[in-house]
Protein backbone atom coordinates (compact mmCIF):
# COMPACT_ATOMS: atom_id res chain seq x y z
CA UNK A 1 0.00 0.00 0.00
CA UNK A 2 1.22 3.51 -0.73
CA UNK A 3 2.24 5.90 2.02
CA UNK A 4 -0.77 8.12 1.39
CA UNK A 5 -3.24 5.26 1.63
CA UNK A 6 -1.62 4.01 4.83
CA UNK A 7 -1.69 7.49 6.37
CA UNK A 8 -5.38 7.90 5.51
CA UNK A 9 -6.03 4.51 7.05
CA UNK A 10 -4.13 5.19 10.31
CA UNK A 11 -5.29 8.77 10.87
CA UNK A 12 -8.85 8.03 9.71
CA UNK A 13 -9.05 4.88 11.83
CA UNK A 14 -7.89 6.76 14.94
CA UNK A 15 -10.50 9.48 14.29
CA UNK A 16 -13.27 6.90 14.02
CA UNK A 17 -12.13 5.49 17.36
CA UNK A 18 -12.20 8.92 19.07
CA UNK A 19 -15.65 9.72 17.71
CA UNK A 20 -16.99 6.32 18.78
CA UNK A 21 -15.73 6.94 22.31
CA UNK A 22 -17.24 10.44 22.33
CA UNK A 23 -20.69 9.05 21.51
CA UNK A 24 -20.35 6.34 24.15
CA UNK A 25 -19.17 8.76 26.87
CA UNK A 26 -21.65 11.58 26.38
CA UNK A 27 -21.99 13.98 29.34
CA UNK A 28 -25.47 14.48 30.81
CA UNK A 29 -24.80 16.65 33.87
CA UNK A 30 -22.43 19.50 34.80
CA UNK A 31 -20.59 17.07 37.05
CA UNK A 32 -19.97 14.74 34.12
CA UNK A 33 -19.06 17.67 31.91
CA UNK A 34 -16.58 19.22 34.40
CA UNK A 35 -15.02 16.23 36.20
CA UNK A 36 -16.27 13.13 34.32
CA UNK A 37 -18.60 12.35 37.24
CA UNK A 38 -15.61 11.93 39.57
CA UNK A 39 -15.33 8.20 39.01
CA UNK A 40 -12.28 7.77 36.77
CA UNK A 41 -9.91 4.93 37.88
CA UNK A 42 -6.35 6.16 38.68
CA UNK A 43 -4.62 4.25 35.84
CA UNK A 44 -7.04 5.64 33.27
CA UNK A 45 -6.63 9.10 34.76
CA UNK A 46 -2.85 8.69 34.62
CA UNK A 47 -3.03 7.88 30.91
CA UNK A 48 -5.43 10.72 30.25
CA UNK A 49 -3.16 13.11 32.17
CA UNK A 50 -0.16 11.94 30.15
CA UNK A 51 -2.01 12.53 26.86
CA UNK A 52 -3.34 15.85 28.13
CA UNK A 53 0.17 16.91 29.09
CA UNK A 54 2.12 15.63 26.09
CA UNK A 55 1.27 18.06 23.34
CA UNK A 56 2.51 18.54 19.83
CA UNK A 57 5.49 20.20 21.57
CA UNK A 58 6.44 17.05 23.48
CA UNK A 59 5.76 14.72 20.60
CA UNK A 60 7.23 16.69 17.72
CA UNK A 61 9.44 19.44 19.11
CA UNK A 62 11.11 18.08 22.25
CA UNK A 63 13.39 15.56 20.54
CA UNK A 64 14.20 18.26 17.99
CA UNK A 65 15.27 20.69 20.70
CA UNK A 66 17.40 18.06 22.47
CA UNK A 67 18.89 17.05 19.14
CA UNK A 68 19.98 20.55 18.19
CA UNK A 69 20.79 21.94 21.64
CA UNK A 70 22.23 18.87 23.39
CA UNK A 71 23.02 19.24 27.08
CA UNK A 72 21.18 22.53 27.68
CA UNK A 73 17.85 20.94 26.74
CA UNK A 74 17.93 18.98 30.01
CA UNK A 75 16.04 21.91 31.58
CA UNK A 76 13.00 20.81 29.52
CA UNK A 77 13.45 17.11 30.24
CA UNK A 78 13.76 17.61 34.01
CA UNK A 79 11.40 20.59 34.24
CA UNK A 80 8.49 18.96 32.45
CA UNK A 81 8.71 15.76 34.53
CA UNK A 82 9.94 17.02 37.93
CA UNK A 83 6.85 19.23 38.18
CA UNK A 84 4.80 16.08 38.72
CA UNK A 85 6.65 15.41 41.98
CA UNK A 86 5.52 18.85 43.21
CA UNK A 87 2.02 18.21 41.91
CA UNK A 88 1.74 14.81 43.62
CA UNK A 89 3.09 15.90 47.00
CA UNK A 90 2.04 19.53 47.33
CA UNK A 91 -1.15 20.08 45.36
CA UNK A 92 -3.12 17.18 43.91
CA UNK A 93 -4.29 15.28 47.05
CA UNK A 94 -5.45 18.43 48.85
CA UNK A 95 -7.22 19.89 45.85
CA UNK A 96 -9.00 16.56 45.38
CA UNK A 97 -10.13 16.64 49.01
CA UNK A 98 -11.35 20.19 48.55
CA UNK A 99 -13.57 18.68 45.87
CA UNK A 100 -14.56 21.47 43.48
CA UNK A 101 -14.49 21.67 39.71
CA UNK A 102 -11.80 24.19 38.79
CA UNK A 103 -8.62 25.97 39.87
CA UNK A 104 -10.31 29.40 40.19
CA UNK A 105 -12.93 27.61 42.34
CA UNK A 106 -10.27 26.74 44.89
CA UNK A 107 -8.57 30.12 44.80
CA UNK A 108 -11.90 32.01 45.01
CA UNK A 109 -13.25 29.92 47.91
CA UNK A 110 -10.04 29.57 49.89
CA UNK A 111 -9.36 33.29 49.72
CA UNK A 112 -13.10 34.15 50.09
CA UNK A 113 -12.77 36.71 47.33
CA UNK A 114 -14.16 37.20 43.86
CA UNK A 115 -11.14 39.37 43.02
CA UNK A 116 -8.84 36.40 43.64
CA UNK A 117 -11.22 34.20 41.63
CA UNK A 118 -11.23 36.62 38.72
CA UNK A 119 -7.42 36.89 38.66
CA UNK A 120 -7.29 33.10 38.58
CA UNK A 121 -9.83 32.99 35.73
CA UNK A 122 -7.83 35.50 33.69
CA UNK A 123 -4.57 33.58 34.25
CA UNK A 124 -6.28 30.31 33.34
CA UNK A 125 -7.66 31.72 30.11
CA UNK A 126 -4.37 33.36 29.04
CA UNK A 127 -2.32 30.25 29.84
CA UNK A 128 -4.74 27.95 28.02
CA UNK A 129 -5.17 30.05 24.89
CA UNK A 130 -1.41 30.54 24.64
CA UNK A 131 -1.03 26.83 24.62
CA UNK A 132 -3.90 25.91 22.36
CA UNK A 133 -2.75 28.18 19.54
CA UNK A 134 0.32 25.99 19.03
CA UNK A 135 -1.70 22.77 19.06
CA UNK A 136 -4.07 23.76 16.28
CA UNK A 137 -1.15 24.86 14.13
CA UNK A 138 0.55 21.52 14.82
CA UNK A 139 -2.49 19.61 13.58
CA UNK A 140 -2.53 21.75 10.45
CA UNK A 141 1.16 21.11 9.72
CA UNK A 142 0.86 17.35 10.12
CA UNK A 143 -2.18 17.22 7.84
CA UNK A 144 -0.54 19.35 5.21
CA UNK A 145 2.55 17.16 5.12
CA UNK A 146 0.89 13.77 5.16
CA UNK A 147 -2.55 14.28 3.62
CA UNK A 148 -1.49 16.93 1.11
CA UNK A 149 -4.21 19.35 2.14
CA UNK A 150 -3.76 23.02 2.76
CA UNK A 151 -2.63 23.84 6.35
CA UNK A 152 -5.86 25.79 6.92
CA UNK A 153 -8.00 22.85 5.79
CA UNK A 154 -6.03 20.72 8.25
CA UNK A 155 -6.83 23.15 11.06
CA UNK A 156 -10.53 23.02 10.20
CA UNK A 157 -10.56 19.19 10.19
CA UNK A 158 -8.88 19.25 13.62
CA UNK A 159 -11.44 21.75 14.91
CA UNK A 160 -14.31 19.58 13.73
CA UNK A 161 -12.99 16.50 15.53
CA UNK A 162 -12.31 18.34 18.81
CA UNK A 163 -15.68 20.06 18.54
CA UNK A 164 -17.36 16.71 18.35
CA UNK A 165 -15.97 15.16 21.49
CA UNK A 166 -15.25 18.19 23.67
CA UNK A 167 -18.65 19.83 23.21
CA UNK A 168 -20.63 16.59 23.36
CA UNK A 169 -18.70 14.69 25.96
CA UNK A 170 -17.13 17.35 28.17
CA UNK A 171 -14.58 15.97 30.61
CA UNK A 172 -16.10 12.50 30.41
CA UNK A 173 -15.72 12.29 26.65
CA UNK A 174 -12.28 13.89 26.77
CA UNK A 175 -10.98 11.55 29.47
CA UNK A 176 -11.75 8.35 27.61
CA UNK A 177 -10.64 9.72 24.24
CA UNK A 178 -7.38 10.79 25.87
CA UNK A 179 -6.82 7.23 27.10
CA UNK A 180 -7.11 6.07 23.48
CA UNK A 181 -4.96 8.96 22.27
CA UNK A 182 -2.25 8.09 24.77
CA UNK A 183 -2.08 4.55 23.39
CA UNK A 184 -1.83 5.84 19.82
CA UNK A 185 0.79 8.47 20.58
CA UNK A 186 3.06 6.29 22.71
CA UNK A 187 2.98 3.51 20.11
CA UNK A 188 3.72 6.06 17.40
CA UNK A 189 6.68 7.42 19.34
CA UNK A 190 8.15 4.15 20.58
CA UNK A 191 7.96 2.03 17.41
CA UNK A 192 10.30 4.26 15.39
CA UNK A 193 12.42 4.89 18.51
CA UNK A 194 13.00 1.16 18.95
CA UNK A 195 13.63 0.65 15.21
CA UNK A 196 16.21 3.43 15.34
CA UNK A 197 18.02 2.07 18.39
CA UNK A 198 18.18 -1.40 16.87
CA UNK A 199 19.43 -0.01 13.60
CA UNK A 200 22.10 2.25 15.08
CA UNK A 201 23.29 0.23 18.07
CA UNK A 202 21.56 -3.17 18.22
CA UNK A 203 20.02 -2.22 21.58
CA UNK A 204 16.26 -2.62 21.96
CA UNK A 205 15.67 0.32 24.30
CA UNK A 206 16.56 3.88 23.31
CA UNK A 207 17.27 4.53 27.01
CA UNK A 208 20.32 2.25 27.07
CA UNK A 209 21.16 2.53 23.37
CA UNK A 210 22.35 6.13 23.75
CA UNK A 211 25.19 4.84 25.94
CA UNK A 212 26.07 2.04 23.52
CA UNK A 213 29.26 1.59 21.53
CA UNK A 214 29.09 1.85 17.73
CA UNK A 215 30.84 -0.43 15.20
CA UNK A 216 33.62 2.14 15.08
CA UNK A 217 34.41 1.31 18.72
CA UNK A 218 33.35 4.78 19.81
CA UNK A 219 30.27 5.41 21.96
CA UNK A 220 27.25 7.20 20.44
CA UNK A 221 27.77 10.27 22.61
CA UNK A 222 31.49 10.46 21.87
CA UNK A 223 30.70 10.20 18.15
CA UNK A 224 28.17 13.01 18.47
CA UNK A 225 30.68 15.15 20.32
CA UNK A 226 33.30 14.51 17.65
CA UNK A 227 30.97 15.17 14.70
CA UNK A 228 29.66 18.34 16.33
CA UNK A 229 33.12 19.71 17.04
CA UNK A 230 34.37 18.88 13.52
CA UNK A 231 31.49 20.91 12.11
CA UNK A 232 31.99 23.84 14.46
CA UNK A 233 29.03 23.14 16.75
CA UNK A 234 29.37 23.07 20.54
CA UNK A 235 30.14 19.67 22.05
CA UNK A 236 26.87 17.72 22.32
CA UNK A 237 27.32 16.72 25.96
CA UNK A 238 28.61 20.13 27.11
CA UNK A 239 26.26 22.96 27.98
CA UNK A 240 26.51 26.64 27.10
CA UNK A 241 23.90 28.02 29.51
CA UNK A 242 25.13 29.36 32.85
CA UNK A 243 24.43 27.24 35.93
CA UNK A 244 22.20 29.90 37.48
CA UNK A 245 20.09 30.25 34.32
CA UNK A 246 19.70 26.49 33.99
CA UNK A 247 18.68 26.32 37.65
CA UNK A 248 16.03 29.06 37.39
CA UNK A 249 14.74 27.78 34.07
CA UNK A 250 14.32 24.23 35.34
CA UNK A 251 12.53 25.51 38.43
CA UNK A 252 10.19 27.76 36.43
CA UNK A 253 9.25 24.83 34.18
CA UNK A 254 8.65 22.56 37.19
CA UNK A 255 6.52 25.06 39.14
CA UNK A 256 4.77 26.02 35.91
CA UNK A 257 3.95 22.40 35.13
CA UNK A 258 2.49 21.95 38.61
CA UNK A 259 0.44 25.13 38.17
CA UNK A 260 -1.08 24.45 34.74
CA UNK A 261 -4.88 24.47 35.16
CA UNK A 262 -5.59 21.81 32.52
CA UNK A 263 -3.27 19.37 34.31
CA UNK A 264 -4.57 20.16 37.81
CA UNK A 265 -8.24 19.61 36.91
CA UNK A 266 -7.45 16.04 35.84
CA UNK A 267 -6.96 15.22 39.53
CA UNK A 268 -10.54 16.28 40.33
CA UNK A 269 -11.87 13.35 38.31
CA UNK A 270 -10.79 10.45 40.57
CA UNK A 271 -12.93 9.07 43.42
CA UNK A 272 -10.58 9.38 46.42
CA UNK A 273 -7.57 11.31 47.74
CA UNK A 274 -5.32 8.26 47.53
CA UNK A 275 -6.39 7.88 43.89
CA UNK A 276 -5.22 11.43 43.22
CA UNK A 277 -1.75 10.55 44.54
CA UNK A 278 -1.63 7.29 42.57
CA UNK A 279 -2.83 9.06 39.39
CA UNK A 280 0.18 11.35 39.57
CA UNK A 281 2.40 8.28 39.85
CA UNK A 282 0.79 6.60 36.85
CA UNK A 283 0.83 9.82 34.85
CA UNK A 284 4.57 10.22 35.38
CA UNK A 285 5.27 6.59 34.43
CA UNK A 286 3.37 7.07 31.18
CA UNK A 287 5.11 10.38 30.53
CA UNK A 288 8.54 8.99 31.45
CA UNK A 289 8.26 6.25 28.81
CA UNK A 290 8.34 8.97 26.18
CA UNK A 291 10.61 11.46 27.93
CA UNK A 292 13.40 9.00 28.72
CA UNK A 293 13.34 7.83 25.07
CA UNK A 294 13.67 11.37 23.77
CA UNK A 295 17.45 11.73 24.37
CA UNK A 296 18.06 8.52 22.39
CA UNK A 297 15.83 9.55 19.50
CA UNK A 298 17.46 12.97 19.48
CA UNK A 299 20.99 11.54 19.47
CA UNK A 300 20.43 8.93 16.74
CA UNK A 301 18.48 11.43 14.68
CA UNK A 302 21.38 13.83 14.76
CA UNK A 303 23.98 11.21 13.85
CA UNK A 304 21.75 10.02 10.98
CA UNK A 305 21.11 13.53 9.74
CA UNK A 306 24.77 14.55 9.74
CA UNK A 307 25.96 11.32 8.12
CA UNK A 308 23.21 11.34 5.47
CA UNK A 309 23.72 14.93 4.51
CA UNK A 310 27.49 15.27 4.88
CA UNK A 311 28.39 11.77 3.76
CA UNK A 312 30.87 9.39 5.39
CA UNK A 313 33.76 11.81 5.01
CA UNK A 314 31.73 14.51 6.78
CA UNK A 315 32.67 16.96 4.01
CA UNK A 316 29.44 17.19 2.00
CA UNK A 317 27.50 14.95 -0.38
CA UNK A 318 26.24 15.19 -3.96
CA UNK A 319 22.62 16.45 -3.99
CA UNK A 320 21.66 13.73 -6.47
CA UNK A 321 22.82 11.01 -4.07
CA UNK A 322 20.77 12.21 -1.12
CA UNK A 323 17.63 10.11 -0.51
CA UNK A 324 14.09 11.16 -1.50
CA UNK A 325 12.98 12.34 1.93
CA UNK A 326 15.24 15.35 1.58
CA UNK A 327 13.32 16.71 -1.40
CA UNK A 328 9.96 15.90 0.19
CA UNK A 329 10.79 18.00 3.27
CA UNK A 330 12.25 20.75 1.08
CA UNK A 331 8.74 21.10 -0.35
CA UNK A 332 7.33 21.90 3.08
CA UNK A 333 9.98 24.53 3.63
CA UNK A 334 11.26 22.82 6.77
CA UNK A 335 14.58 22.01 5.07
CA UNK A 336 16.33 24.57 2.89
CA UNK A 337 19.48 24.04 0.85
CA UNK A 338 21.41 26.81 -0.81
CA UNK A 339 24.43 25.74 -2.87
CA UNK A 340 26.71 28.59 -1.84
CA UNK A 341 29.93 27.32 -3.45
CA UNK A 342 28.13 25.79 -6.48
CA UNK A 343 29.78 22.41 -6.12
CA UNK A 344 26.47 20.53 -6.24
CA UNK A 345 27.12 19.12 -2.79
CA UNK A 346 25.09 19.65 0.34
CA UNK A 347 27.14 20.59 3.38
CA UNK A 348 25.89 21.15 6.92
CA UNK A 349 27.96 22.88 9.60
CA UNK A 350 28.02 25.74 12.07
CA UNK A 351 30.64 27.59 10.02
CA UNK A 352 30.24 30.00 7.11
CA UNK A 353 30.33 27.17 4.60
CA UNK A 354 27.00 25.86 5.93
CA UNK A 355 24.42 25.43 3.14
CA UNK A 356 21.57 23.89 5.05
CA UNK A 357 18.75 25.26 7.22
CA UNK A 358 16.90 22.56 9.13
CA UNK A 359 13.75 23.18 11.17
CA UNK A 360 14.07 21.38 14.50
CA UNK A 361 10.57 19.94 14.27
CA UNK A 362 11.48 17.54 11.49
CA UNK A 363 13.61 15.45 13.87
CA UNK A 364 10.65 13.31 14.92
CA UNK A 365 8.54 13.64 11.77
CA UNK A 366 11.33 12.90 9.29
CA UNK A 367 13.35 10.52 11.47
CA UNK A 368 11.55 7.39 10.22
CA UNK A 369 12.16 8.49 6.63
CA UNK A 370 15.80 9.37 7.26
CA UNK A 371 16.27 5.94 8.82
CA UNK A 372 14.38 4.36 5.87
CA UNK A 373 11.78 2.67 8.04
CA UNK A 374 8.73 1.01 6.40
CA UNK A 375 5.80 3.19 5.29
CA UNK A 376 3.42 2.00 8.00
CA UNK A 377 5.78 3.44 10.65
CA UNK A 378 5.66 6.82 8.93
CA UNK A 379 1.85 6.67 8.81
CA UNK A 380 1.78 5.72 12.49
CA UNK A 381 3.90 8.76 13.39
CA UNK A 382 1.41 10.99 11.60
CA UNK A 383 -1.48 9.51 13.60
CA UNK A 384 0.55 9.90 16.82
CA UNK A 385 1.37 13.55 16.17
CA UNK A 386 -2.30 14.29 15.52
CA UNK A 387 -3.31 12.41 18.70
CA UNK A 388 -0.80 14.40 20.78
CA UNK A 389 -2.02 17.73 19.44
CA UNK A 390 -5.75 16.92 19.65
CA UNK A 391 -5.66 15.48 23.18
CA UNK A 392 -3.94 18.57 24.58
CA UNK A 393 -6.15 20.95 22.62
CA UNK A 394 -9.30 19.26 23.98
CA UNK A 395 -8.08 19.44 27.59
CA UNK A 396 -7.25 23.13 27.22
CA UNK A 397 -10.54 23.98 25.54
CA UNK A 398 -12.43 22.29 28.35
CA UNK A 399 -10.58 24.36 30.96
CA UNK A 400 -11.37 27.55 29.06
CA UNK A 401 -15.07 26.74 28.71
CA UNK A 402 -15.33 25.68 32.37
CA UNK A 403 -13.70 28.90 33.57
CA UNK A 404 -16.26 30.88 31.64
CA UNK A 405 -19.45 28.92 32.43
CA UNK A 406 -18.64 27.93 36.01
CA UNK A 407 -16.29 30.50 37.51
CA UNK A 408 -17.47 33.55 35.62
CA UNK A 409 -21.18 32.95 34.84
CA UNK A 410 -22.27 30.80 37.76
CA UNK A 411 -19.94 31.93 40.58
CA UNK A 412 -19.41 35.59 39.78
CA UNK A 413 -22.18 36.95 37.57
CA UNK A 414 -25.34 34.91 38.10
CA UNK A 415 -25.38 32.42 41.02
CA UNK A 416 -29.02 31.48 40.26
CA UNK A 417 -28.09 29.71 37.03
CA UNK A 418 -29.77 26.29 36.84
CA UNK A 419 -27.65 23.25 36.07
CA UNK A 420 -29.15 22.97 32.61
CA UNK A 421 -28.37 26.60 31.81
CA UNK A 422 -24.83 26.22 33.16
CA UNK A 423 -24.29 23.19 30.93
CA UNK A 424 -25.57 25.16 27.97
CA UNK A 425 -23.11 27.97 28.77
CA UNK A 426 -20.30 25.41 29.09
CA UNK A 427 -21.05 23.95 25.65
CA UNK A 428 -21.50 27.42 24.15
CA UNK A 429 -18.18 28.57 25.62
CA UNK A 430 -16.48 25.44 24.25
CA UNK A 431 -17.77 26.27 20.76
CA UNK A 432 -16.50 29.85 20.99
CA UNK A 433 -13.14 28.64 22.38
CA UNK A 434 -12.73 26.19 19.48
CA UNK A 435 -13.47 28.93 16.96
CA UNK A 436 -10.92 31.26 18.59
CA UNK A 437 -8.34 28.46 18.77
CA UNK A 438 -8.97 27.66 15.10
CA UNK A 439 -8.50 31.31 14.22
CA UNK A 440 -5.11 31.22 15.96
CA UNK A 441 -4.31 28.04 14.06
CA UNK A 442 -5.04 29.67 10.70
CA UNK A 443 -3.41 32.99 11.67
CA UNK A 444 -0.59 31.90 13.99
CA UNK A 445 0.74 34.75 16.13
CA UNK A 446 4.21 34.02 14.73
CA UNK A 447 5.73 33.76 18.17
CA UNK A 448 4.55 30.37 19.37
CA UNK A 449 7.95 29.60 20.87
CA UNK A 450 8.01 32.86 22.79
CA UNK A 451 4.54 32.50 24.25
CA UNK A 452 5.44 29.16 25.82
CA UNK A 453 7.70 31.07 28.21
CA UNK A 454 4.67 33.19 28.96
CA UNK A 455 2.38 30.27 29.81
CA UNK A 456 4.88 28.63 32.17
CA UNK A 457 6.00 31.93 33.67
CA UNK A 458 2.41 32.88 34.47
CA UNK A 459 1.55 29.49 35.95
CA UNK A 460 4.73 29.46 38.08
CA UNK A 461 4.37 33.03 39.35
CA UNK A 462 0.61 33.11 40.02
CA UNK A 463 -1.37 29.86 40.19
CA UNK A 464 1.27 27.62 41.78
CA UNK A 465 2.18 29.84 44.79
CA UNK A 466 -1.45 30.84 45.42
CA UNK A 467 -2.61 27.22 45.68
CA UNK A 468 0.45 26.13 47.67
CA UNK A 469 0.00 28.84 50.32
CA UNK A 470 -3.73 28.15 50.41
CA UNK A 471 -2.99 24.60 51.56
CA UNK A 472 0.14 24.95 53.67
CA UNK A 473 -0.50 28.27 55.41
CA UNK A 474 -3.63 28.71 57.51
CA UNK A 475 -2.65 32.31 58.10
CA UNK A 476 -2.69 33.30 54.40
CA UNK A 477 -5.54 35.74 53.72
CA UNK A 478 -7.16 37.53 50.77
CA UNK A 479 -4.94 40.61 50.89
CA UNK A 480 -1.76 38.51 51.00
CA UNK A 481 -2.76 36.14 48.20
CA UNK A 482 -4.05 38.84 45.86
CA UNK A 483 -1.08 41.17 46.33
CA UNK A 484 1.31 38.21 45.95
CA UNK A 485 -0.30 37.10 42.69
CA UNK A 486 -0.38 40.63 41.30
CA UNK A 487 3.30 41.21 42.18
CA UNK A 488 4.37 37.84 40.75
CA UNK A 489 2.44 38.26 37.51
CA UNK A 490 3.54 41.87 37.07
CA UNK A 491 7.31 41.30 37.25
CA UNK A 492 7.18 38.08 35.23
CA UNK A 493 5.05 39.62 32.47
CA UNK A 494 7.16 42.78 32.38
CA UNK A 495 10.38 40.78 32.05
CA UNK A 496 9.07 38.42 29.38
CA UNK A 497 7.43 41.18 27.35
CA UNK A 498 10.56 43.35 27.50
CA UNK A 499 12.91 40.59 26.35
CA UNK A 500 10.62 38.67 23.99
CA UNK A 501 8.65 41.43 22.32
CA UNK A 502 10.39 44.77 22.87
CA UNK A 503 13.84 43.70 21.74
CA UNK A 504 15.72 43.37 25.05
CA UNK A 505 19.08 41.64 24.58
CA UNK A 506 20.63 38.85 26.60
CA UNK A 507 23.42 41.00 28.09
CA UNK A 508 20.69 42.94 29.95
CA UNK A 509 19.34 39.81 31.70
CA UNK A 510 19.17 40.34 35.46
CA UNK A 511 21.79 38.04 37.06
CA UNK A 512 21.96 36.21 33.72
CA UNK A 513 18.45 34.77 34.05
CA UNK A 514 16.65 34.19 30.73
CA UNK A 515 12.95 35.10 30.30
CA UNK A 516 12.17 31.34 30.38
CA UNK A 517 13.62 31.18 33.88
CA UNK A 518 12.16 34.39 35.25
CA UNK A 519 8.94 32.75 36.42
CA UNK A 520 11.02 31.45 39.33
CA UNK A 521 11.84 35.01 40.38
CA UNK A 522 8.16 35.96 40.04
CA UNK A 523 7.24 32.98 42.19
CA UNK A 524 9.71 33.92 44.95
CA UNK A 525 8.46 37.51 44.88
CA UNK A 526 4.87 36.23 45.12
CA UNK A 527 5.76 34.26 48.27
CA UNK A 528 7.56 37.19 49.91
CA UNK A 529 4.91 39.83 49.15
CA UNK A 530 2.10 37.50 50.24
CA UNK A 531 3.87 36.71 53.51
CA UNK A 532 4.53 40.35 54.38
CA UNK A 533 1.08 41.65 53.43
CA UNK A 534 -0.77 38.82 55.18
CA UNK A 535 1.18 39.32 58.39
CA UNK A 536 0.10 42.97 58.46
CA UNK A 537 -3.60 42.26 57.83
CA UNK A 538 -6.28 40.35 59.74
CA UNK A 539 -6.16 36.56 59.78
CA UNK A 540 -8.74 34.68 57.70
CA UNK A 541 -12.16 33.93 59.29
CA UNK A 542 -12.57 30.78 61.36
CA UNK A 543 -14.58 28.90 58.74
CA UNK A 544 -11.81 29.37 56.17
CA UNK A 545 -9.22 28.06 58.63
CA UNK A 546 -11.56 25.12 59.16
CA UNK A 547 -11.54 24.46 55.39
CA UNK A 548 -7.74 24.34 55.45
CA UNK A 549 -7.81 21.91 58.41
CA UNK A 550 -10.29 19.83 56.50
CA UNK A 551 -8.44 19.51 53.16
CA UNK A 552 -5.39 18.20 55.03
CA UNK A 553 -7.28 15.07 56.13
CA UNK A 554 -8.04 12.59 53.32
CA UNK A 555 -11.20 10.98 54.73
CA UNK A 556 -14.56 12.18 53.51
CA UNK A 557 -13.53 13.45 50.08
CA UNK A 558 -16.76 12.23 48.50
CA UNK A 559 -17.42 13.21 44.93
CA UNK A 560 -16.53 16.62 43.54
CA UNK A 561 -19.40 19.02 44.06
CA UNK A 562 -20.41 22.52 43.17
CA UNK A 563 -21.52 23.45 46.69
Amino acid at each position, binding site marked *: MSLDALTFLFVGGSFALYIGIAIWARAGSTKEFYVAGGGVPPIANGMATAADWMSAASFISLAGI*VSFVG*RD*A*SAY*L*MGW*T*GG*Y*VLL*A*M*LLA*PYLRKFGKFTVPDFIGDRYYSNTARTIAVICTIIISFTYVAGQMRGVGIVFSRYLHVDINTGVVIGMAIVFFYAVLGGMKGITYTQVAQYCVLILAFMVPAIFLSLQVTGHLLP*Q*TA*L*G*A*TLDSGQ*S*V*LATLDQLSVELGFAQY*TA*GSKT*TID*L*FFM*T*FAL*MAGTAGLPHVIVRFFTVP*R*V*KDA*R*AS*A*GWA*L*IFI*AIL*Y*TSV*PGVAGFGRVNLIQTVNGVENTGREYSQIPDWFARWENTGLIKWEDKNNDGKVFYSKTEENELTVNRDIMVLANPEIAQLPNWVIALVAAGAVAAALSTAAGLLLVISTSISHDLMKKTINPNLSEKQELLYARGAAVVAILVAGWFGVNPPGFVAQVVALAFGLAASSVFPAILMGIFSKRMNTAGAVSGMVAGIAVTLAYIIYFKFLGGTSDQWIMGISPEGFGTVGMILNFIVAKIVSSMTAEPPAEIQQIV*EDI*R*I*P*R*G*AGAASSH
Partner: protein
Amino acid sequence: MSLSNENAQAYWSENLRIIITYLSIWFVVSYGCGVLFVDALDQIQFFGFPLGFWFAQQGSIFVFVGLIWAYVFSMNKLDEKYDVHE
Protein backbone atom coordinates in the same frame (compact mmCIF):
# COMPACT_ATOMS: atom_id res chain seq x y z
CA MET B 1 -14.19 10.80 60.97
CA SER B 2 -13.99 12.08 64.51
CA LEU B 3 -10.29 12.77 64.48
CA SER B 4 -9.15 14.57 67.62
CA ASN B 5 -7.32 17.84 67.20
CA GLU B 6 -4.15 16.35 68.60
CA ASN B 7 -4.23 13.44 66.19
CA ALA B 8 -4.89 15.76 63.28
CA GLN B 9 -1.83 17.80 64.29
CA ALA B 10 0.33 14.68 64.60
CA TYR B 11 -0.90 13.39 61.23
CA TRP B 12 -0.09 16.70 59.57
CA SER B 13 3.41 16.97 61.00
CA GLU B 14 4.24 13.39 59.95
CA ASN B 15 2.86 14.20 56.52
CA LEU B 16 5.11 17.27 56.34
CA ARG B 17 8.12 15.19 57.39
CA ILE B 18 7.45 12.70 54.57
CA ILE B 19 7.11 15.50 52.02
CA ILE B 20 10.29 17.22 53.17
CA THR B 21 12.27 13.97 53.02
CA TYR B 22 11.18 13.14 49.48
CA LEU B 23 11.50 16.70 48.20
CA SER B 24 15.07 16.83 49.54
CA ILE B 25 15.91 13.80 47.40
CA TRP B 26 14.05 15.41 44.50
CA PHE B 27 16.16 18.54 44.88
CA VAL B 28 19.49 16.75 45.22
CA VAL B 29 18.90 14.55 42.17
CA SER B 30 17.60 17.21 39.79
CA TYR B 31 19.27 20.44 40.91
CA GLY B 32 22.28 18.82 42.56
CA CYS B 33 23.24 16.05 40.13
CA GLY B 34 21.64 17.61 37.03
CA VAL B 35 22.62 21.27 37.40
CA LEU B 36 24.93 22.32 40.24
CA PHE B 37 27.49 19.48 40.38
CA VAL B 38 27.06 18.27 36.85
CA ASP B 39 30.60 19.07 35.73
CA ALA B 40 32.18 17.07 38.53
CA LEU B 41 29.90 14.10 37.86
CA ASP B 42 30.69 14.21 34.14
CA GLN B 43 34.19 12.98 34.98
CA ILE B 44 32.64 9.62 35.88
CA GLN B 45 31.58 7.29 33.05
CA PHE B 46 28.30 5.41 33.57
CA PHE B 47 27.31 2.79 30.94
CA GLY B 48 28.70 4.98 28.17
CA PHE B 49 27.25 8.22 29.55
CA PRO B 50 29.07 10.96 31.42
CA LEU B 51 27.25 10.59 34.77
CA GLY B 52 26.11 14.23 35.09
CA PHE B 53 24.70 14.18 31.56
CA TRP B 54 22.86 10.94 32.34
CA PHE B 55 21.27 12.40 35.48
CA ALA B 56 20.22 15.55 33.65
CA GLN B 57 18.63 13.75 30.69
CA GLN B 58 17.39 10.41 32.06
CA GLY B 59 18.38 9.50 35.60
CA SER B 60 16.48 12.28 37.32
CA ILE B 61 13.26 11.24 35.53
CA PHE B 62 13.57 7.64 36.78
CA VAL B 63 14.13 8.96 40.32
CA PHE B 64 11.05 11.23 40.04
CA VAL B 65 8.86 8.23 39.20
CA GLY B 66 10.31 6.26 42.13
CA LEU B 67 9.76 9.22 44.49
CA ILE B 68 6.08 9.64 43.67
CA TRP B 69 5.42 5.93 44.23
CA ALA B 70 7.40 5.90 47.49
CA TYR B 71 5.29 8.87 48.57
CA VAL B 72 2.06 7.08 47.58
CA PHE B 73 2.97 4.04 49.70
CA SER B 74 4.20 6.11 52.68
CA MET B 75 1.00 8.14 52.69
CA ASN B 76 -1.26 5.10 52.39
CA LYS B 77 0.47 3.67 55.44
CA LEU B 78 0.22 6.94 57.32
CA ASP B 79 -3.49 7.30 56.47
CA GLU B 80 -4.15 3.87 57.96
CA LYS B 81 -2.05 4.57 61.03
CA TYR B 82 -4.20 7.58 61.86
CA ASP B 83 -7.36 5.96 60.53
CA VAL B 84 -8.07 8.75 58.05
CA HIS B 85 -8.13 6.53 54.95
CA GLU B 86 -11.26 6.11 52.85
